[in-house]
């Protein structure tokens, strides 16, 4: 009985669901409460009813596109916030608006792909990782350390965690090798290591703010 009502409801409000992200999120939560996952299969009845199959598929493709294009700069790690901003900028005027929740759903659909798309968190930062890589806990700690400043020195790491030199060097080398960190040798005695994804998010936020 509940399922029938829900289907009627969805059918009536299909347009709103596509165009109003907040409403869409609520409807999807409702579906999940009832035990219906609209995205469990692209051909699923609910997915077609909601008319969202294409929407998430298209979004998924756009996400892959953006991640692949920036991979050689950021090592396959991008701030979720920045991804959202890039998607909004890239989508044609008049197409459905997207919110963070949509990205999460689209990415969960991409899980089966070899690219290893997933969301990882470092402190308060939410990142989209688009390469199949397991970051060890040392690296994750350093990422969290740098979450606000976007950068760190080996000295910062030593002071924060008390690790010995070898351990710090090994961690930094791994981060450099994976392409997620770039080195700044302005101060030759204390080079700074910048997390491109952190910087990029800040910088793109500033650029867009200035443009408005």
């Amino acid at each position, binding site marked *: 009985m509940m399922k029938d009502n829900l289907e009627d409801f969805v059918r009536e409000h299909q347009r709103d669901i596509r165009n109003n992200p907040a409403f869409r999120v609520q409807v999807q939560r409702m579906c999940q409460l009832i035990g219906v996952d609209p995205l469990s299969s692209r051909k699923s009845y609910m997915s077609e009813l909601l008319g969202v199959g294409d929407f998430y598929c298209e979004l998924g493709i756009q996400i892959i596109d953006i991640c692949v294009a920036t991979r*050689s*700069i950021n090592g396959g790690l991008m701030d979720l916030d920045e991804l959202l901003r890039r998607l909004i900028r890239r989508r044609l005027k008049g197409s459905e608006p997207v919110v963070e929740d949509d990205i999460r759903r689209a990415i969960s659909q991409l899980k089966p792909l070899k690219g290893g798309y997933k969301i990882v968190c470092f402190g308060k930062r939410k990142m989209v990782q688009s390469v199949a890589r397991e970051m060890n806990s040392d690296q994750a700690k350093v990422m969290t350390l740098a979450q606000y400043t976007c950068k760190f020195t080996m000295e910062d790491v030593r002071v924060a965690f008390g690790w010995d030199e070898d351990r710090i060097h090994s961690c930094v080398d791994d981060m*450099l*090798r994976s*392409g997620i960190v*770039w*080195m*700044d*040798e*302005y101060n030759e005695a204390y*080079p*700074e290591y*910048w997390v*491109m994804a952190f*910087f*990029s998010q800040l*910088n*793109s936020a500033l*650029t867009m703010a200035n443009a408005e």
Partner: protein
Amino acid sequence: MSNTTAVPTPGAFQFPEIYNFPPLFTRQPNESTWQEQRRQWCDLILAYYRHNRLYSLTLAEAITEPPFTNRQIHRSLRVDVLRELVDDLVKQGNASWTGAKNAKDSCLVLWRKPEVWASMIYQWANERGLFNTVLTVFELANGDDTVGQEFHNLDSVTLRRALDVLQSQGKAQLFVGTSDEDMGVKLFA
């Protein structure tokens, strides 16, 4: 209407977002990051030089100015890194070392390849019915007849390269004068 005069494009040059990233000015130790860095720099150099209608650079001077110095973030590219970047541009046909052999201290920045300049000049001569006429190189670059052409006010060394291309294609003959500007050129079908 595209920019058909050889003056700098109006409006400030739009630097890419990565230009404010301090590590861009340090040669990256990681090989694949360095590859990406080179690509970014080469694109930036060509775009900047194209926008500002600049044709040549002397390395020691250039690193103290934009784009190789970003005053806002207090960073400058090192001369040896710039040298590597110019070598890259040379490999792709977008730069040419000038000055003393192997000194690698100055170069032409060929944001438009000599072959392309050559074909623009040739097309103009064809349209104006100027085949088989001797023109001075000076007239070609600075004369009233070429006002509005992309190659009007073209740097003389770059122009010479373009004319050399036409000569090697059998489409022109150069006549030596007492200086580069005295040189004459005859274009033919």
